[in-house]
């Protein structure tokens, strides 16, 4: 049954389903799903628009991501992030709920929200984003996500 669902999902993806979602991650590739989710979150925070999150997040992670985007929208603030590079620095968890930690290098700034103030300059940043995924509806979805503070970072090899 699951194979049938997966096949249907693959066909749907091949036919251009799932709106603007990135290429459908394979069952064996939660890293690709985490990367796609990171893209979706970056886009949502940049546009203060959470509509693209549903295909990548679920449960607690989806609600918290919506909260963050809604807070930005309420204040007219956006987080602009220009991606420079990403890599998976850790994969773990269980087969059912794999964990992927991405290290993301970017330049970012927060715009809007001020009383007509000019946008601040971009600042270089490095962050590690932990995503725990689950297989749902024929795809990997991020169930829990967290920005890791540096003391909790995974070493980069």
């Amino acid at each position: 049954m699951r194979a049938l669902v997966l096949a249907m999902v693959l066909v749907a993806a091949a036919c251009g389903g799932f709106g603007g979602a990135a290429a459908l991650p394979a069952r064996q590739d939660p890293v690709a799903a985490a990367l796609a989710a990171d893209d979706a979150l970056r886009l949502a925070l940049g546009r203060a628009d959470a509509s693209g999150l549903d295909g990548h997040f679920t449960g607690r992670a989806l609600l918290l991501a919506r909260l963050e985007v809604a807070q930005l929208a309420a204040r007219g603030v956006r987080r602009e992030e220009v991606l420079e590079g990403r890599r998976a620095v850790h994969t773990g968890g269980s087969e059912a709920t794999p964990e992927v930690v991405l290290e993301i290098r970017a330049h970012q700034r927060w715009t809007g929200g001020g009383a007509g103030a000019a946008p601040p300059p971009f600042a270089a940043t490095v962050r590690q984003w932990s995503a725990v995924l689950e297989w749902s509806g024929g795809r990997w979805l991020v169930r829990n996500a967290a920005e890791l503070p540096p003391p909790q970072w995974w070493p980069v090899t």
Partner: protein
Amino acid sequence: MRRGAVLLGGVLLGVTSLLATRDVAASSWGSSYGDPYGFCPLYSYLPATYTSVVTNDPSVPNNPERDTFWGIHADPGYDTWYGFWYGDYAGRPGDASGWVDMMTVPYGSVGHWNFGDYGWSVHGHVKQYVAYYNWTFGGSCGVGAYGSTDPPPYMADVYGWPVVDFYVDSVPPDPPAPVISGVTPASVTFSWAPVSDRGDGSGADYFAIGFDHFLSWITVNGGPAQQYAATPAPRTLTAAGLRAGDVACVHVLAYDRLGNGTGDQQACGSPLAPPAPPPPPPPPAVFINPWPAGLAGLDSWYWLSPRPRTLTYVRAVGATSYVISAAPQAVTWSFGDGRPVGYGVPAGYGYAYPAVSPVAHSYQGQSATGYPVSATITYALSWMAFAGSAWFGPYSMGTESVTTAAVAYPVRQAQPEIASFG
């Protein structure tokens, strides 16, 4: 704005139920600094709204809590915002600001603040708490709003990031020190050792993001960059095809993971120019036994004295020291009655009588005036150079020959005589 507020309200309903089990009794978020006195996370969405920021800019332009100071309470019609900072935010590691009255914002307005507004900059780690003062509903996290001596409640920002850990590393790695690791008459090779990253701040607030990569290339005579590449480790670059007088330079920069880079570290060198050949070694003399005349049909023995040996010359040209060696390689003997005969060394030097010399020759006929006997010693020349901090070479510079003065060697015919009759 209104659409955003409606959206936010809907989301909050879901999040509030989701976070019903959040640990409001938690005393700290993120780093090891505990919460300041009077900080009240109740009604906020901590820890979901805790975040950390890592950057290389001490002014932290990407501070998310910089345009978040809203006047959100219609009663009393304004909000007073307070901040509390730990760490190296004002040039002193391990500092603590106490609660600082940042601003009072009228209802419906928004205020701005960032570190630079106080003349501050972040080095290493800083932990920031931002709260609005609880004027109207004291007792949420302890009594104190209305004249009590207890700490007043500083209410964690609800619509922003009330607790942020900043990690700033604005210091590049140790500068790499490229050196000349090889040089030939047509090339210069450079390399350098690994370097460590240097962090920012000090003490408990020290933070180093970690080394990332080198950027390196070479130039020849100030020309365009060649072999330009980013590498995670030191590498070896060789400027080849050089001619005398060319100057090759390596350029190396080291970067950490936040893009802090060292200045352009350079080392330059030129290909080695061969030194002038040394003067010819003094020729030895030829000695022969029997002496002063040989006998036709019988071996004569030959040798050189003094015996040739390896000669070493030291020269300095500018900053380069040269060592030139002349090593005997072969001896060619000319006995004056035919084709020269070649010998290796040391056999070709012969041995002084009465030792048996490997250089032997017998004449077939007499010569009253003497056969001209001479020897030609061939030296192999090589050179080494000390440049920078190492020796390079040896490199061949051909051969050099020295011929002895010719010795006239008379040879007599032996006459048989009857000594006695038996």
